[in-house]
């Protein structure tokens, strides 16, 4: 399987081609072309396309739209109005649930939606950073789920069974979670480095192993099961181990600050540290990195360990911040897989992932409001999310849909004219 998992690589224009463009078109035109055809524009258009596709899905499955479609040719206005109603109602609910709830009276409670978005975004950012870090080193960590589960189990166990002073308890619980996630990820790196086992297969398999291990611990008294209970669920966390809220009256907690800290750390690691330099070098070309004297094995091990710890941070945030009343086997809530889409949308850049995490957090927070207010099942969020990534993964497709130019190239007619001139020159 491919060593390079750096997803979206822009084709580098050939140097002579670039020179020619600079000669022929003015600098402003060139800048405009690069902005319109560049990767940021592709991301925005991908989100737009996916939302349009989601809108079509909402409209097609809406009862009123189906009803009015029966007499579309008699009164087309009815169906168009029905489509507009269904789609706008759903997307307005999405906005209300994720950013600003204008149905509320005061600004404070209207902003609850925004702080809910931050709550949903926190684990997505953390796990997205983990997956993105792997991408930069050429590793594909699909094991976010397993790493989250192991971290949640460790942090949760520390969180409900220890008696420690307030601040220390949180720190110990977070550390336990990070270590557990790091070990679960590090196993993969170790196997890859020592035996060449492909990390995709190993992480998928370890996801299931972690899940069944958690299920076993959850139903075994003395491990994670709440004493006296028969259900596979842990006891609630001790108050000393819970992340305190950031603002009174809102759900957002100190976990969000850990996500910001993790983003800064990954940015520093990748862009300012020599270890991160090695990660990137191995990601671009492991053979060249080996030739340059870097230890590819240790890069694999360290990348997977840190990646696992970051996914672990997502699990820690779930148990110490979001689901503090005791958790069951669904604690990962699909975040391990969502994180892949977050990392892809963020193009594996730390702050890009941060933004992508916020966007998908908003989709999640708004999705539930949409389900309640507009009877649109929350699963549509998955559809929109995966379509965004599909569109982003194939820039030529988006460029073809919107007839955008490829950045760094001259308009076709000019290239042809200059080609002809060059040919003439050669002939002469």
């Amino acid at each position: 399987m491919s060593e390079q998992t750096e997803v979206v690589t822009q084709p580098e224009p050939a140097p002579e081609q670039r020179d020619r463009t600079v000669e022929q078109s003015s600098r402003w035109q060139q800048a405009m072309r690069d902005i319109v055809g560049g990767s940021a524009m592709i991301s925005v258009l991908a989100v737009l396309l996916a939302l349009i596709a989601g809108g079509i899905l909402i409209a097609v499955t809406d009862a009123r739209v189906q009803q009015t479609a029966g007499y579309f040719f008699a009164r087309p206005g009815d169906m168009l109005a029905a489509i507009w109603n269904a789609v706008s109602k759903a997307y307005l609910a999405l906005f209300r649930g994720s950013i600003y709830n204008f149905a509320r009276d005061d600004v404070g409670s209207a902003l609850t939606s925004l702080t809910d978005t931050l709550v949903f975004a926190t684990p997505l950012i953390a796990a997205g950073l983990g997956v993105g870090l792997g991408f930069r080193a050429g590793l594909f960590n699909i094991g976010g789920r397993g790493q989250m589960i192991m971290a949640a189990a460790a942090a949760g166990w520390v969180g409900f069974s220890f008696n420690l002073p307030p601040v220390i308890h949180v720190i110990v619980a977070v550390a336990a979670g990070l270590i557990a996630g790091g070990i679960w990820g590090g196993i993969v790196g170790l196997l890859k480095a020592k035996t060449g086992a492909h990390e995709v297969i190993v992480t998928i398999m370890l996801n299931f192993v972690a899940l069944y291990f958690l299920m076993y611990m959850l139903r075994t008294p003395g491990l994670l099961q709440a004493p006296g209970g028969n259900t596979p669920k842990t006891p609630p966390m001790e108050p000393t181990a819970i992340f305190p809220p950031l603002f009174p009256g809102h759900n957002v907690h100190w976990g969000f600050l850990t996500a910001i800290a993790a983003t800064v750390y990954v940015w520093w690691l990748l862009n300012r540290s020599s270890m991160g330099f090695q990660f990137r070098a191995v990601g671009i070309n492991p053979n060249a990195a080996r030739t340059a004297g870097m230890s590819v094995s240790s890069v694999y091990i360290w990348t997977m360990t840190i990646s696992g710890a970051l996914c672990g941070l997502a699990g820690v945030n779930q148990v110490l911040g979001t689901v503090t009343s005791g958790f069951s086997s669904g604690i990962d809530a699909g975040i391990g897989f969502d994180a892949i889409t977050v990392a892809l949308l963020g193009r594996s850049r730390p702050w890009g992932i941060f933004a992508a995490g916020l966007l998908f957090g908003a989709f999640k927070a708004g999705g539930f409001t949409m389900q309640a207010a507009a009877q649109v099942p929350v699963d549509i969020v998955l559809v929109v999310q995966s379509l965004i990534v599909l569109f982003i993964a194939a820039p030529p497709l988006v460029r073809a849909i919107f007839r955008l130019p490829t950045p760094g190239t001259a308009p076709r007619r000019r290239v042809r004219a200059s080609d002809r001139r060059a040919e003439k020159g050669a002939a002469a």
Partner: protein
Amino acid sequence: MSAETQAPAAETSNGAVAVARAAVVSWKAPIAFGVFALLALVLFVLNPRAEAETGFRLSTGRDFIQIPDLIVPAFVTGVIVTIALFAIALWSAILVRQRRKTPLWVVIVFAVLFMVGFLAWAAAGETVPVPGLLIGTVSLSVPLIFGAMAGVISERGGVVNIAIEGQLLSGAFTSALIASVTNNPYLGLLGAAIAGLLVSFVLGAFAVKYFVDQIIVGVVLNVLVIGLTSFLYSKVLQADAATLNSPERFARIDIPVLSGIPIIGPVLFSQTIIVYVMYVAVAVIAFALFKTRWGLRLRSVGEHPTAADTVGINVAATRFWNVSLGGAIAGFGGAYFTLGSVGAFQKEMTAGMGFIALAAVIFGKWHPVKATLAALLFGFATNLKNVLGVIGSPVPSEFMLMLPYIVTVFAVAGLVGVSRAPAADGKPYIKS
């Protein structure tokens, strides 16, 4: 300069790796046998159960010959099995010392012996329904085997198929919908194959045409199919479940004479049409992959696309259409969830089966028959957990469920046997 000094070092390190690996390969079988034999010693002999006897029910009511239940003494069986296991491990070690390979049938005999010993130990004081255990194994393995065939075809052609899960799920959804609306399960089967085909069209288009990383497309497609089917299930199917989500299930077809054979009959020859199609599909794929022009071309674009291109094979088209074929097969297998076993579509009803199928492909070394055996093994582990859950087991059921995944990790780590992917698996072929 640096390249010159590096080159010999790289060569020696490669040579060392090759030698070490060759040595490990030859000793893997006896070491693995030894570990399992030790496990048998610890469990069956050193930790005997209180109950003295274990029963094995061998017949169902419909067989020609009724074989009475086999009652064996639990402890003595454990001791005999353990001795036999150690003998096989020793024999395998002797074979390796003579630089000979351990044949596959020895591995199978070892595995069967270990299972007999394990059942005699785990189910002491109870009766193990052997036909039920095996029937459940086959029925749990059907979607796995179809998924594994999809994976084998696709990966032999050089395209990693992580989207098996999505293909199975789309097949399950479409077959339930179409079979309910038309009241014809055969049309449902057809619809399932087409749904799987459509999913793999997307995979093929992105992977072969746009050179997008195949693993990423696969993962995202799984999310897309889960999202789409869950959305449509909540919004459309649930609203009118009586007409949209209540397909007629396939009836079991008894093959005359064969279905009356004890043990084998009810397990293999009293199944739905999907299972019979599966037998044919595995046989045809196993034959065609290695004996026909289609198979040779498919394998050549997966092993060395440049060479295939040089002799005039259209690499992109070959890959695209074979990925599509694989998708259709997986979609067909997905119909088993709704038309063969459960009878109605449910959200995310494939529950990770596509990933187990992928594991079966790797564990089965990209070979259709071995992948089928691996899928059966995984189905057996799952069903063993169900059966032992009913009669009570000293081993927590979760650990039984973990077993296939751990075995796969060992397999890809090269501890169970070398598992080599097609050389160009996952690498896009960009024609220059």
